[in-house]
């Protein structure tokens, strides 16, 4: 389970954010990531064969981990209503299908989503901080976040300032995350690194550490607006950073790959990475989420295939 107590860093880490130079030294002192090696490991884990009982369990687990997402300029209240209905009851004909973990929307639609999910455990996540680019003043980002919290958002998905990252202003990113964390109050904070704009695995590892040190509850790969989004090697590098952070602080940080995870097979590859990197303690919706829109229908079709023995088809699952 997620801890809500304030983050207290152990002595070895307590002063790494005391100055720009201390943070820089710390980040550049992290061991590097070898591109060939991490991609080879992912290729090997991707051959795991998930059959029968494991497949049935994996499908339901993946459904329960989904942050069902709509982040479009043309989102309407009507769209949110149908999305929430789908989140509650993914397959209208089969009540044994579990609900998803959360719906993820822009902040002006949080209230609509909340009202459609009354009486359920489904969380409402709002993207904030001038999502997806993050190009706004801190004051605007704080306002954006507090608006979402005021409307009842349970979770905030913020973006980091990638411009600052490439300029080497790591402490600014840290400070911004801390500021947003304060505004979040009891809402969980997911920090989006937008790994597609960080480009190297070393950068992904460093950005993961900045976010975790600053108090992120979750780290998240992508906005879904930049390609590539959640690739498996990026997810593995972030999971390993979470593991290292846990070794040093005993604090469990959650992980959310988002964008590009479309099929049951993709979802299983992610679950395998989690299982064989962080272990069973992370294999639940409190610690692992999948940000996706089209994945759910593939999971439903695979689920039906497993229970009935026959493939249905895209016309037999709802397109909400």
């Amino acid at each position, binding site marked *: 389970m997620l801890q809500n107590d304030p983050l207290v860093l152990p002595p070895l880490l307590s002063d790494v954010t005391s100055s720009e130079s201390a943070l820089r030294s710390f980040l550049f002192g992290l*061991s*590097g*990531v*070898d591109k*060939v*090696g*991490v991609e*080879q*490991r992912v290729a*090997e884990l991707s*051959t*795991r*064969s*998930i*059959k*029968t*009982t*494991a*497949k049935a*369990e*994996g499908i339901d*687990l993946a459904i329960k981990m989904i942050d069902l997402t709509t982040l479009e300029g043309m989102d309407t209240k009507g769209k949110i209503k149908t999305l929430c209905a789908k989140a509650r009851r993914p397959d209208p004909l089969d009540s044994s299908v579990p609900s998803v973990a959360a719906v993820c929307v822009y902040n002006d639609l949080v209230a609509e989503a909340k009202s459609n999910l009354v009486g359920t455990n489904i969380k409402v996540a709002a993207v904030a901080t001038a999502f997806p680019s993050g190009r706004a003043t801190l004051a605007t980002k704080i306002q954006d976040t507090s608006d979402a919290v005021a409307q009842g958002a349970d979770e905030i998905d913020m973006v980091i300032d990638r411009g600052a990252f490439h300029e080497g202003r790591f402490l600014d990113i840290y400070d911004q995350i801390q500021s947003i964390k304060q505004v979040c109050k009891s809402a969980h904070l997911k920090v989006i690194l937008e790994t597609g704009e960080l480009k190297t695995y070393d950068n992904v590892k460093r950005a993961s550490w900045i976010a975790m040190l600053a108090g992120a509850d979750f780290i998240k790969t992508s906005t879904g607006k930049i390609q590539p989004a959640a690739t498996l090697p990026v997810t593995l590098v972030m999971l*390993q950073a979470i593991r290292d952070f846990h*070794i040093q602080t005993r604090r469990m940080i959650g992980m959310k790959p988002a964008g590009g995870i479309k099929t049951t097979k993709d979802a299983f590859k992610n*679950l395998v990475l989690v*299982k*064989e990197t962080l272990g*069973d303690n992370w*294999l*639940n919706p409190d610690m692992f989420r999948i940000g996706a829109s089209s994945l759910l229908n593939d999971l439903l079709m695979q689920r039906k295939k497993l229970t009935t023995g026959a493939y249905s088809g895209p016309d037999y699952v709802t397109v909400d």
Partner: protein
Amino acid sequence: MVFEYAAAPESSAIVNIKSHYNLFIGGKFVKGKNNSNYKTINPATEEVLAEITEASVKDVNEAVKAARKAFKTWSKLTGSQRGKYLFRIARIIQERAREIAVLETMNNGKPIRESRDIDIPLVAAHFFHYAGWADKLDHAGLGKNPQPLGVAGQIIPWNFPLLMLAWKIAPALAAGNTVVLKPAETTPLTALLFAEICQQAELPDGVVNIITGAGETGKALVEHPDINKIAFTGSTEVGRLIAQSVAGTNKKVTLELGGKAANIVFDDAAIDQAVEGVVQGIFFNQGHVCCAGSRLLIQESISDNFMNLLYERMKNLRLGNPLDKNTDVGAINSAAQLAKIKELTQAGSAEGAEMWSAPCEIPNRGFWFAPTVFTNVSLSHRIAREEIFGPVLSVLTFRTPDEAIEKANNTPFGLSAGIWTEKGSRILEVANRLRAGVVWANTFNKFDPTSPFGGYKESGYGREGGRHGLEAYLKAGK
């Protein structure tokens, strides 16, 4: 437990194992003259798979005679004609890859993931590579119009049965030689399937002859007077006997023997990938790898963190049914090999090293050994000096690069080594000073048909693979 992987076994229905196998001589399967047979088993279940002929001296004579006869015509074919057969064999191997992989796993004990993704694709790649060389021998760096040696006697080990066959047969045939090959006693089945593939490819009779048997059969082959070349991969002990036996004859020899490779991890290494590389280096193929990274040299300043990550990683290794697609560690190939591993690990404990084994459930039947690590190892311990040829890692520490190099080189072997550091200049310096035939940097156990492979010192002589591999099967031209 959450999301436990269910059994996902590859079906063995695709293979058609005969109850009895004859010898493959002169393009036909023929009975052994002594009517002496032995049984080959699946080391994961101890179930008998087939009865195999033990070739006698008379059978070896017949095989060499057939190869000599075939040499007269095979060596006169143009390179492109020989290449045509090799390409054909390579393609059939690809077409029948799944069948071959399942059979390899059943007879050897290695995980299907490895035979399917590594062994068999490399087998096909070797045949493709040397098929391409067959009409380009003038460019092998051996002068104009280099000539084949004649009949090659080839003896291969049980750790990569078909891959070792490919390493031997593909360059020999491309260069215009004919061969008599003896697979290892415990793993003859894929070599016998390869004999069928030679028939399917309509390879001229006698170009490839496969004789099965144990040490005596091998000895008869090595000592046969009409053999021009001996190629052996196996233990240093047997390699020594072969070198003695052919001394004073005209036979050319290449030997690829044992190893005790150091995998050196510097404090600036990419830690997670280095942990992975160490795991692949020693637990790949149950450590039945002559170039296995069996000695980990870890810089003291990161050893605690590194070892903790290594133990955690090893807890995820899945030992069990080799045919299961999720198995990482398969069966030990034979009771004899298991006994040897046990003897050496007991010596390690007795000499004061500390043993840790991954918590695996060991199946009731078959031959198994859990992935194991020894710490507090000194260079004087047997487990730091002798080749264990099993899933056992000996860990030593070092303080400076000089010390690492000194310790890495302090072995009678010299087949391979690994370097892990994010610093390019260190890779170049250390690689130059390591006395090992293959040095991997930030990776391990990577094989490619274009790359020469072979050792220093007691690890043998001669190179296999790539352009260098042709030299072992050609007389230099003008």
